[in-house]
């Protein structure tokens, strides 16, 4: 049964092969209109494999936990053995049992640890004595992400076959969709940090390529470049963080690093703090956290299914996933267990707040959803910051479904309303597109956190995490969370009003999308309703007599093998907190309802009141962050660099070139004057004139008279004879 867990490399391999097949044979062999079948088939196979992996993993967890509950005495022995064997640990399938109990162990999951399945091949490459292995690390978190990524990817593949139909780069679109799926799956099962970086960058490249899918228009390429460059800023943090971790532990192995932090604890606190801050920069860029979130709304320039898959459900949660993967590092670095505020929680909470605020000032439906994504990602980061690991992953899981549904719904609306995303040109669409309307409303209720939709349960767990914390509560985060819950409900209700109610303000006749688009919407809408059931608290399940099915995410997804080591506790559920969260959401909906439907409240306030106007402009200009980056930060760096470059150009490079030119000219002249004219020509002339004058001299002897020649001959002979006679 563990076959798929040990051979998990197949899961990213299949879409990777699909990418190559589509790219190389898509247009020629398969035919441009049929490439989507290849992509859908590949992702379908991967979805089945992921489900198999989930079943295998659940069986594996069951095997290790039933061991404890079946035989308590054996478990006690196993604790001792486990503790003594832990130094020699790492054997596949070895069972550790933590001895501690925090008094909340009635969920049946127990505190047994389940070892992750690690398959690795040594000798990927080596550099200065360090060997890099390559392999897969499959644990509950990986399996959770496998389900999310493959499910959303499959539905987006199907949806796109209609949405992008007839596009001139249909083949490339599907090729990159496959490559993205492969990269994301590779990323979530990376066994070491180097592999993780590779996956991280690959998804970034796919994001870049797909945002700029319609690159003929300048804003799209600008958005793609902005996304890529903003991510580069965070990637520096990722590299620095990974280098610090390697310098501290001497390994890139994720599992080994997590175990080492658990064992060493405060010994490595400072290094972990530095690593956490560096890695936080990476999270800020990839997961759209303040202050590097500005690329995410612009990324909506890409095709809408891409926004749903990459910029809402999967790629942008890579940062959240990375925090969860290296949680002991952050837990130690930011002292999450003992503090009542820390950098991660604050960034998350603040991002949630400003993202929700910005969503009010947007007219583009996709940008509202993008800021909503920023805000919800802030929620997840905040949850991790307050020590609520499970809540963050659970929210990641539920958010993926309802946010993908909202994005695909927005795509459906745009498909119907002549490719506009401007809500001022929509309105009244509920009459024309009932399926889109219903699914959109369901997802909105889920996002707003209304009972009993999925978002209610996951948001409630995050508020609970902030309320209880680990050793001390996080009151500021609780306030942020409640305010964001209210704002979220309000701005989503505003979207529904502008899009689906009132009179149609666009042109032409809107129509419902075909089934190939509405069926994925309905599947996602159903998930938006029931996804909350995957981690219901025990008291709720007790009502139905299904206590064994409570806290499924907590039981099966948590990487207990190292979360237990750092002593992560789970707060008991609080009924009143859930009520507060629900009241916040309903209040948000109610206020917006009164404002739009009943037409009460301060309409036109922004025109009448100077301060309200200023506040609205401030939101509309996105807190002037883009201006800060492009005009002040980039401008202040760019202008001196440009001036310096110009100075260097004028004074150094030009001078060098001119000097070289003048030198060449002068030496050419010198050579002409002294070598060519002076030496060579003179030599030749001298030879010529010498021969001439020699000839003129000798010419005298050439009389033409034989007797003169004879005289010379005999005279010479006589002289020679005399010389011979005298000398010899």
């Amino acid at each position, binding site marked *: 049964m563990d076959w798929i867990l040990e051979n998990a490399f197949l899961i990213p391999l299949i879409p990777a092969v699909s990418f190559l097949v589509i790219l190389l044979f898509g247009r020629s062999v398969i035919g441009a209109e049929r490439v989507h079948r290849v992509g859908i088939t590949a992702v379908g196979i991967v979805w089945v494999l992921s489900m198999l992996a989930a079943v295998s993993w659940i069986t594996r967890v069951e095997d290790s936990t039933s061991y404890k509950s079946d035989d308590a005495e054996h478990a006690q022995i196993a604790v001792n053995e486990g503790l003594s064997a832990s130094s020699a640990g790492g054997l596949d399938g070895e069972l550790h049992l933590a001895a501690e109990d925090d008094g909340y162990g009635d969920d049946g999951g127990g505190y047994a640890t389940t070892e992750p399945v690690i398959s690795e091949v040594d000798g990927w490459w080596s550099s200065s004595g360090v060997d890099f292995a390559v392999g897969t690390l499959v644990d509950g978190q990986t399996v959770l992400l496998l389900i999310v990524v493959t499910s959303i990817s499959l539905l987006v593949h199907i949806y796109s076959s209609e949405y992008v139909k007839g596009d001139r780069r249909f083949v490339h679109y599907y090729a990159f969709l496959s490559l993205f799926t492969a990269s994301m799956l590779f990323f979530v099962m990376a066994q070491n940090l180097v592999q993780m970086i590779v996956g991280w960058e690959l998804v970034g490249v796919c994001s870049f390529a797909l945002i700029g899918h319609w690159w003929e228009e300048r804003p799209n390429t600008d958005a793609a470049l902005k996304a890529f460059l903003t991510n580069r800023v965070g990637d520096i943090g990722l590299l620095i963080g990974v280098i610090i971790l390697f310098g501290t532990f001497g390994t890139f192995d994720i599992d080994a690093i997590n175990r080492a932090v658990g064992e060493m604890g405060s010994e490595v606190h400072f290094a972990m703090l530095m690593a956490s801050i560096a890695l936080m920069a990476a999270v800020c860029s990839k997961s759209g956290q303040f202050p590097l979130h500005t690329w995410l709304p612009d990324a909506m320039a890409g095709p809408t299914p891409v926004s749903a898959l990459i910029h809402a459900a999967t790629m942008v949660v890579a940062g959240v996933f990375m925090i969860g993967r290296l949680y002991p590092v952050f837990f130690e670095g930011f002292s999450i267990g003992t503090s009542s505020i820390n950098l991660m929680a604050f960034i998350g909470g603040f991002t949630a707040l400003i993202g929700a605020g910005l969503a009010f000032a947007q007219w583009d439906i996709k940008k509202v959803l993008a800021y909503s994504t920023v805000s919800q990602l802030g929620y997840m980061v905040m949850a991790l910051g307050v020590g609520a690991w499970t809540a963050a992953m659970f929210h990641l899981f539920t958010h993926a479904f309802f946010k993908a549904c909202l994005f695909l719904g927005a795509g459906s609306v745009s498909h119907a309303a002549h490719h506009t995303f401007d809500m001022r040109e929509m309105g009244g669409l509920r009459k024309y597109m009932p399926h889109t309307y219903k699914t959109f409303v369901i997802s909105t209720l889920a996002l707003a956190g209304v009972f009993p939709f999925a978002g209610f349960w996951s948001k409630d767990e995050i508020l609970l995490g902030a309320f209880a914390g680990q050793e001390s509560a996080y009151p500021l985060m609780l306030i942020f969370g409640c305010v964001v819950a209210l704002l979220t409900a309000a701005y989503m209700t505003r979207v529904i009003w502008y899009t689906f109610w009132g009179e149609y303000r666009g042109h032409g006749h809107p129509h419902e999308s075909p089934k190939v688009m509405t069926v994925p919407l309905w599947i996602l809408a159903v998930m938006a309703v029931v996804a909350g059931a995957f981690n219901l608290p025990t008291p709720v399940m007790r009502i139905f007599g299904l206590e064994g099915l409570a806290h499924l995410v907590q039981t099966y997804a948590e990487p207990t093998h190292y979360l237990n080591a750092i002593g992560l506790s789970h707060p008991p559920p609080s009924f009143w907190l859930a009520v507060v969260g629900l009241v916040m959401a309903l209040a948000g909906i109610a206020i917006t309802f009164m404002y739009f439907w009943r037409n009460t409240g301060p309409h036109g306030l922004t025109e009448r009141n100077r301060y309200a106007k200023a506040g609205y402009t401030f939101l509309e200009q996105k807190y002037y962050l883009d201006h800060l980056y492009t005009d002040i930060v980039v401008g202040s760096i760019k202008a001196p660099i440009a001036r310096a470059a110009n100075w260097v150009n004028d004074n150094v490079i030009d001078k060098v070139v001119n000097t070289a030119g003048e030198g060449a000219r002068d030496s050419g002249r010198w050579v002409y004057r002294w070598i060519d004219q002076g030496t060579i020509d003179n030599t030749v002339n001298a030879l010529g004139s010498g021969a001439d004058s020699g000839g003129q001299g*000798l*010419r*005298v*002897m*050439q*009389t*033409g*008279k*034989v*007797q003169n020649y*004879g*005289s010379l001959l*005999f005279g010479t002979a006589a002289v020679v004879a005399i010389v011979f006679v005298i000398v010899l």
Partner: protein
Amino acid sequence: MLLNQFLLLGALLFAVGVYGVLARRNGVMVLMSIELMLNAVNLNLVAFGLQHDVVSGQVFALFIIAVAAAEVGVGLAIVLLLYRNRKSIAVDEFDLMKG
């Protein structure tokens, strides 16, 4: 031994021949002076052959007489042709090769 007398006679004849070649204007006289020089050499060869009691000196002399006959034949033919063309055999008038 009479070698010295022969050599002195040969030298005298040769000197007379050289003078004739260089000084006479008449082409025929030049040819005759050449004959004198050749015969001076013949005299020397025969004298040295006698002195060393070898016959090759006389053989050489015979060769030279034969070659001289041929040479005179060619030389007189040239002089004859010169006369036909230029109505003169004065060798100092022929300076076409003057540089």
